[in-house]
């Protein structure tokens, strides 16, 4: 049984040394085998003595082959474990560092204990946060030990088989010692390690992060290559690896959907008569759904590649989900794993991957640049920004914007809100240090954002809502974010932003909530005569449409943690 204190002591160095020794052993065996090869009996030697010598030589050949197989297996297993131990070391380091920073300790048996020394009672909200961190540490320790135990069991199994002479069986079929290299390779296959299975569906981002961190880089690369579906949408895995897996997944999905579409077309072509027409109509709907998903993949392909056809290094495909009626995806501008400031934008009604994602990625790329420009003028250009467009849910679709409130329920926002909260937590869990995180929600996406922050403890530091029909709450105090860190924009002629005033179906009007900063969407005349641009209507707040609006300026300041709260920033 591997304990936490065992895992803490693990070092790859001695294992790498052992691989060197096994290499020497193998070379020595190979030399001996060559000698054996040269020791074949002279053709003129016949009789009982010659036969006995030939049998003995055959036994020695078998032994050499088995030995080669055993060395090959142990060498492979020890080498793989040495690499994998570096993953365990990383995980141990991260856990110990997080525990120390948050005043917890992990005991030798892996128990997470409080180490906060204070005579004062801990306020409720701080205790809630400490409980969350403790739960995260428990999950991470569990995943790290799972990997350590898996490695231990795998290596023990290979060593036991070698000790019992059961790695490979040389049964005298071949008497040619020259095939020793092949026997070594056969052994290497037997010595390859299993990869510890990922945490189950529904696992917390901390569990996923703990699992991923404890894998070796070779194991991670193998999983991305062979099982991208286990990696790409797993909240808690680093964004860079999620992106690599999702690009693989997109390729696979495209092939499979094209084949499905062709099968439907073939089927439709063979249908005739009134019954056939009925079937055709149903098949046509399926085909349209598949074609929309293919258009979504095409749009993602366009987003992820630059004008020369290369994969863009400054975007990350953080999720790709082709299940359900429509494709779902999240795309980041910038490096989410390392940025100082991360903003996650949830769009609203009628948003789709095929129809709107590219435009949103453009809008959020622009917002990122505005934020970076603000960092420059503030003398903080050593800080970095990433902006994510999260379309990980299926917002309602309706053609009639005047009556949408009559037909739209909050169900998609409830479901989306829980997924969004996991996405926020996944960003934090995948990093050794949390970024300053801002949740941005537009329209129905602001409802999903509000619900995410109402029902979950997340690492969100600031929340920005615009064109909101409601947040699913009646007070900012219901949002689990620091007090005074909620912002809202409500433009003139935006009917959706007035919905909450009329129906309160999704909670009170955000603009009227106590503790909510009501940010400017107005245009201004400056003392020197120029004017700033107002935002009007429901869809202009953040749009990169060639006009830099007061609302975009306001958001860019919020996402770097320096909101400009003046009612007239131009003055």
């Amino acid at each position, binding site marked *: 049984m591997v304990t936490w204190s065992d895992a803490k002591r693990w070092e790859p160095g001695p294992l790498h040394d052992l691989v060197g020794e096994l290499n020497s052993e193998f070379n020595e065996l190979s030399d001996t085998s060559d000698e054996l090869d040269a020791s074949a009996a002279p053709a003129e030697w016949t009789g009982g003595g010659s036969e006995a010598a030939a049998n003995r030589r055959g036994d020695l050949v078998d032994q050499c082959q088995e030995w080669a197989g055993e060395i090959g297996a142990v060498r492979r297993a020890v080498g793989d474990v040495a690499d994998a131990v570096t993953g365990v070391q990383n995980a141990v380091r991260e856990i110990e560092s997080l525990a120390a920073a948050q005043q917890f300790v992990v005991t030798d048996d892996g128990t997470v204990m409080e180490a906060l020394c204070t005579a004062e009672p801990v306020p409720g909200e701080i205790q809630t946060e400490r409980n969350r961190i403790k739960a995260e540490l428990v999950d991470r320790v569990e995943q790290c030990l799972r990997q350590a135990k898996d490695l231990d069991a795998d290596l023990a199994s290979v060593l036991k088989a070698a000790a019992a002479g059961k790695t490979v069986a040389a049964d005298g079929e071949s008497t040619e010692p020259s095939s020793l290299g092949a026997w070594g390779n056969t052994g290497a296959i037997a010595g390859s390690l299993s990869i510890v299975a990922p945490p189950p569906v529904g696992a917390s981002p901390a569990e996923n992060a703990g699992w991923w961190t404890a894998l070796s880089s070779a194991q991670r690369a193998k999983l991305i290559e062979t099982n991208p579906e286990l990696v790409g949408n797993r909240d808690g895995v680093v964004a860079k690896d999620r992106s690599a897996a999702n690009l693989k997944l997109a390729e696979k999905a495209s092939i499979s959907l094209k084949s499905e579409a062709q099968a439907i077309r073939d089927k439709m072509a063979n249908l005739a008569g009134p019954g056939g027409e009925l079937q055709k109509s149903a098949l046509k709907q399926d085909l349209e759904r598949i074609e929309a998903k293919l258009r979504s993949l*095409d*749009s993602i392909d*366009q*987003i992820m590649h*630059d*004008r020369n056809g290369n994969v*863009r290094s*400054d975007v990350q495909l953080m999720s790709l989900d082709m299940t359900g009626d429509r494709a779902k995806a999240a795309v980041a*501008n910038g490096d989410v794993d390392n940025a100082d400031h991360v903003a996650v934008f949830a769009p609203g009604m009628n948003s789709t991957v095929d*129809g*709107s994602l*590219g*435009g949103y*990625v*453009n*809008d959020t*790329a*622009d917002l*990122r*640049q505005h934020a*970076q*420009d603000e960092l*420059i*003028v*503030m*003398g903080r*250009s*050593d800080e*970095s920004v990433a902006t994510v467009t999260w379309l990980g849910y299926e917002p309602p679709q309706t053609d009639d914007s005047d009556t949408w409130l009559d037909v739209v329920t909050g169900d998609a926002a409830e479901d989306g809100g829980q997924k969004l909260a996991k996405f926020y937590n996944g960003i934090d869990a995948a990093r050794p240090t949390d970024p300053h995180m801002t949740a941005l929600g537009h329209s129905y996406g602001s409802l999903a954002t509000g619900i995410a922050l109402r029902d979950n403890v997340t690492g969100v530091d600031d929340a920005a809502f615009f064109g909101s029909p409601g947040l699913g709450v009646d007070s900012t105090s219901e949002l689990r974010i620091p007090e005074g860190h909620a912002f809202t924009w409500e433009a003139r002629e935006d009917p959706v932003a007035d919905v909450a005033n009329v129906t309160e179906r999704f909670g009170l009007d955000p603009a009227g909530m106590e503790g909510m900063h009501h940010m400017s969407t107005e245009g201004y005349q*400056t*003392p*020197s005569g*120029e*004017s*700033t*641009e107002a935002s009007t209507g429901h869809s202009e707040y953040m*749009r*990169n*449409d*060639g*006009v*830099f609006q*007061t609302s975009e*300026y306001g958001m860019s300041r919020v996402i770097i943690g320096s909101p*400009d709260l003046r009612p007239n*920033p*131009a*003055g």
Partner: protein
Amino acid sequence: MTGVSPKQKFDELAKRPDIEAVLKRYEQVRTEIRERLATEVGLPQKWEQPYKESETPCGQPYSDVREAIAVQMASWANDGRIAEDKWSRAQELFIELTGRHGFGEPQVVVDNPSKHEIRVYDAYGGSIMLGTEKATVLSARTGCHLAQGAHPRAKNAPA
């Protein structure tokens, strides 16, 4: 542009210069501005680019034109700030130089004694911004343009 086909939008974009030509023009304007800010406003000569260029597919109405892109150019950063009594001169030369290259009327987002930001646009929605607070920034983002290889002029060019 509701009801306009991607082909029609492509043809519309083909009337614009391609993205490489636009980037070249923008950089030329920014170079002139940086030089003049050093000589006439006294900003330090040293400019840096702390962030990289980034390109994206276009937003509406050109989001369905696959060959079209927009570029957020790497912003130029200067550790110096433009002194309050020099801001109006900085603004004048910014408007003069950008106007000479076809940019339009200025728009101001922030204008107070501690912080100024002024922005001009070209006919395609691209913009150049000059801002100063503790430090100074000269940023640029293009509008929507066809990639050079996709532009009919490039395709029709003699080999």
